[in-house]
């Protein structure tokens, strides 16, 4: 895998997304958050620090998830629809490099959006004199890793189904995995051994986005950051899972006639 190929592809995705004004929508949303927080401050609700932090992290999570899904879900279908895949693959690059480059582009756009939202959210939190705690750094890092994983899942989906289907499926997984896993955990004890085995398999296959969301920890004062080994394990999990998604995408795409 060659760095200059990945860099060129990533830059292409970022320029394209910026000019499509996707990030403008994010900036506007950020401003709205800031405005809302200012209004709360104006009406003297600055005692609700935890509530505001909780709200801010939730809004951050929802909007960045939507952006990650929209950007990574339409990249490859757009390449096929616009026939830009032809001149692209006419160049001496492998399909693996193309997929990884595109994924990195989607991750970069998502992270830039996250950064923009983070800046506005931080400004909003500053209005409430909410101190910036170390757990926030952990929240940011893990959120970014979770978003990268989400991009890889959506990329795979976009090669298996229509762009709309891919986006919907990814959003369902992003929002619903936590609930599915909780339901399986509760039912596990009462299930028969084959079903228990099925639950275990499903648990292993589903992307555990919930693990990367430490918004609760960040929102509730007094909760310290998770131990470093936990963060390390999560990074490892995200790396393996994302790689698996990219390999599956490649397996689907490598011999696909275009």
């Amino acid at each position, binding site marked *: 895998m060659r760095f*200059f190929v990945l860099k060129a592809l990533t830059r292409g995705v970022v*320029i394209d997304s910026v000019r499509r004004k996707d990030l403008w929508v994010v900036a506007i949303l950020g401003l709205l958050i800031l405005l809302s927080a200012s209004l709360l401050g104006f009406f003297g609700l600055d005692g609700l620090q935890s509530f505001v932090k909780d709200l801010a992290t939730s809004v951050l999570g929802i909007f960045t998830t939507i952006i990650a899904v929209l950007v990574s879900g339409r990249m490859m279908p757009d390449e096929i629809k616009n026939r830009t895949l032809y*001149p692209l*693959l006419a160049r*001496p*690059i492998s399909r693996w490099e193309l997929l990884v480059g595109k994924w990195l582009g989607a991750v970069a756009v998502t992270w830039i959006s996250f950064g923009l939202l983070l800046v506005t959210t931080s400004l909003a939190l500053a209005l409430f004199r909410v101190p910036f705690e170390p757990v926030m750094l952990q929240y940011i890092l893990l959120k970014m890793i979770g978003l990268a994983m989400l991009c890889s899942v959506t990329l795979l989906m976009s090669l298996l189904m229509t762009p709309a289907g891919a986006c919907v499926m990814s959003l369902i997984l992003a929002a619903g995995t936590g609930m599915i896993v909780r339901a399986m955990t509760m039912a596990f004890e009462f299930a028969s051994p084959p079903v228990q085995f099925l639950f275990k398999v499903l648990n292993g296959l589903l992307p555990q986005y919930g693990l990367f969301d430490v918004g609760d920890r960040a929102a509730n004062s007094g909760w310290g950051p998770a131990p470093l080994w936990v963060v390390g394990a999560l990074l490892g999990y995200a790396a393996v899972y994302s790689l698996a998604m990219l390999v599956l995408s490649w397996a689907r795409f490598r011999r696909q*006639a275009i």
Partner: protein
Amino acid sequence: METTVESSAIQVTDLHVSYRTKGGQTLKAVQGLSFAVQPGEVVGFLGPNGAGKSSTIKALMGFVEPDGGSASIMGLRAGSLAARKRVGYLPEVALYYPYLTPIETLTLFGELQGLRGPELRKEAMHLLELVGLSESYRRQNRTLSKGMLQRVGIAQSLLGSPDVLILDEVTSGLDPIGRRELRNLLKARRDAGCTLFFSSHELAEVEMLCDRLLLIDKGHLIEERKLDDLRDQLREFEVTYTGGPVLSDWSEDIEIGEGGAVRVRFGNQSDLLQAIDRIHQQGGKVIEMIAREGSLEDYFIDTIQRAA
């Protein structure tokens, strides 16, 4: 002339390409196609819609996996990274990245080709100038006309001075001025030793550019002709005279008009000249002589119909 994989710029041997339709049926697009293109040659690839031209080109570029046979470019397996490094490709229709400018588009493709830095920028600007986009290089592609986008495509195909140019419907969207500029550009590439292989429905373009043409239909090669030979074959000579012999032993295409004027058509120049001698010898008087270039379009249609 017998060609080998090593000596050919493009070599296609018994190529088969098929697609599976949504109904589960197999559609055979290319069936046992074989041909070779020599280095420096300009070859037109013709055929009616659905003949298999684009599928062949896709197999040459590695976009589809052939079911059988082989294809190579400059002795390298078609579609391999090494082969693609030596090929410039223009797709039939491409929108390119709508939000990128022509210069950014060329920079992107140039970087993927392995070019970089000021050299790449210089080459990209030079190519944009060559295709007449030097004043529009900062406009986003989505604001460009179809013809201008085709020029962007042509410029990107020339990045890195490829040994082989594969152009699918090369003149699509270009106005007459653009076509002439493109023709001159391609001629310059040919003179520089580049091999050109292109498909087109514009037979006039093919006639003006090609050394040879390949005609395919339903996935089969049905004719392979050098253009000079074809021009000789298609050229028609006609003489109208009075008072001489009826040259029925020279040509079957004879008309006798009002006042006894005889019009005779010949397939080649030597027959015409000999016929004129005979007319003079036998006291005839030549009224008119015409040398008419044959129509490639008629030839194309006749050949396809004959093959069908």
